[in-house]
């Protein structure tokens, strides 16, 4: 029996689900090994009977919490898809201000109190609301990694996600280090798995795959010193994708 897979989305740009359409002909291979029973962005059919729930987006409203809890109850395995789901990502930038203040700045005073659609609290990643079994990182996700995770789960295996920094993949590509070009790159503290795609195209890593659990902080400090940069600047760079988690000492 093929495992039944359902896709769900919360607050996000839906770009990670789009990467599945971007697998092109390989989508056909994918539906050979799993049964897609719900995927609102591309199909009309829907079923609540599924084994694996794949969730994109951050949680921002009470109505999202109850929907997510239902999904967690229905699913045997829950996978967080993309930075909004795995770490909160860009959506967490606004957590530096109280929700009420952001709402007021946005809507002004238009009398939306009690309107459930507008009832936003501070952004949460999925695992701040329900337990998550597996993570597919990135903004957007890496299509190859997505294939690896789905294939592993369909085979009943544990997917392997890198626990070393982006610098490892960047070195393998023989790129010139972007610090040498005067750019501030978060590669040294960020989880690999993207193939160092941004530095390879001349743009610094922004940390979208999340900060490593245990970055080699001594090496990081050494790099900062060599290029006359400070730990405070590093923390400030982290505030794009990893707001509230930028302390890595």
């Amino acid at each position, binding site marked *: 029996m093929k495992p039944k897979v359902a896709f769900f989305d919360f607050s996000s*740009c839906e770009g990670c689900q*789009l990467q599945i359409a971007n697998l092109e002909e390989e989508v056909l291979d994918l539906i050979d090994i799993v049964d897609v029973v719900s995927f609102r962005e591309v199909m009309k059919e829907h079923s609540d009977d599924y084994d694996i729930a794949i969730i994109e987006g951050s949680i921002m409203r009470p109505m999202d919490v109850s929907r997510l809890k239902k999904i967690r109850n229905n699913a045997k395995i829950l996978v967080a898809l993309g930075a909004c789901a795995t770490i909160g990502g860009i959506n967490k930038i606004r957590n530096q201000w109280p929700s009420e203040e952001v709402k007021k700045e946005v809507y002004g005073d238009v009398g939306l109190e009690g309107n459930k659609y507008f009832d936003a609290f501070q952004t949460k990643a999925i695992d701040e609301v329900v337990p998550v079994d597996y993570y597919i990182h990135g903004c*957007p996700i890496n299509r190859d990694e997505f294939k690896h995770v789905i294939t592993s789960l369909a085979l009943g295996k544990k997917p392997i996600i890198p626990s070393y920094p982006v610098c490892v993949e960047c070195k393998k590509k023989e790129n010139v280090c972007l610090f040498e070009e005067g750019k501030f790159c978060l590669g040294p503290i960020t989880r690999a798995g993207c193939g160092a795609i941004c530095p390879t195209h001349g743009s610094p890593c922004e940390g979208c795959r999340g900060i490593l659990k245990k970055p080699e902080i001594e090496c990081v400090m050494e790099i900062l010193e060599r290029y006359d940069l400070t730990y405070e600047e590093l923390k400030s760079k982290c505030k794009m994708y990893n707001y509230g988690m930028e302390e890595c000492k």
Partner: protein
Amino acid sequence: MSKDIDICIEHVTRVEGHGNIVLNVKKGKIEKLEWQISEAPRFFEAMLRDRDYTELRPITSRICGICSIGHSLASLKATEDALGVKNTEQTGIFRRLAINAENMQSHILHVGYLAVPDLLGVGSVFPLVGSKHQETLLKIVKLHRLSNEMSDLICGRTTHPITLVVGGFSSLPSKKQLLTLKEKLEDGLKTTQEVAKVIKSVENNFPDFTRETEYIGLTSDQEYALYDGDIASTDTGRHPDYKNYRKIMQEYVVPFSTAKHAKHKRDSYMVGALARFNLNSNKLHTGAKKVANLFNLKPINYNPFMNNIAQLVEFVHNIEDSIKWIDTLLDEGFEYEKPVDIKLKEGRGVGIVEVPRGILVHDYTLNKKGKCVKANCIIPTNQNHANIQKDMEEFVPKIINKPKKEIELNLEMLVRAYDPCISCSTHYLNVIFK
């Protein structure tokens, strides 16, 4: 006309984002008819406060997964306008390739994956696998792949581009890669014509419905305007004063929608492929004009369902236009240029581009340290919500005697015809009151 109907389609499928259609009819009279947006608001403009000018592009790219290249380009144009940056001609050419690639990717996704299932009477593209339409499906997949490969090549990545930076590019493809791309585009042109014939054979499945409205988009004397041009309306003509875009795009909040609505001279207006076609069809390349003729599409066309066909026409135009620019680059030669040097200064900048779903505005005010102090974005889908609502109000009485299932399908098809991008439209901020 004395029946009761209760329709509540929660989370319309095969559209980007969360929207609901609610229709209550009592004794043949419409009591409630709403196109609701229930997507969570995302507060993007608030998030841009105090961000460095180099971060505005990567952050706003994340407003939308499908039109991230368009948001990136609007963002760069606004930032560059504020800082007084003058880009090279070469940057303009590569950015036009980027915008063509995204338009192609988005249009083929919409026409091929999201709209075609309705025409063929299935719930998604999945049942087409192994059916008599498998060959058509594979052609659509091939065109989708081509569009994405082109974005990857020009922008470093399809979704959330990497190479687009303030004042230019962080890396460029090689001449050899461009030549290979050109060959694939030429092949893609033939494939598109084959797909167009299949769609032609089922075109009668589009509902026959017209409603006169206003169309707004960019227009230019030089080209079919996508990257650059003046704001124009089918009602009021050209408006070159781009910094005063708010005079044309008047946004307001409605309680049943987390996305804003907009209007200009009438109750609503439409933006997107059909609007651009209605404004600029004489600037289309030859092959695109042929496809328009195949479907007898002529300006001004007031049938919102024909937006699907206008997208197909634009797809062909984007391929032809890309081939033209690649030829220019290869004939004249090109080298990687470092981004233009930036001198920080205080100021406001406005960037306007056409993205797949219509005209998009980013508006930033920077302080003298290059930090953003104020931001506003006007999103295509927001500009269409009121027009969708008005279309529904006129469409429902015409189909009210059909079976409930058919009314539902027709209303869903109407929403899908606009190809709404709801994540985009709930990016939120800066409200103008009605």
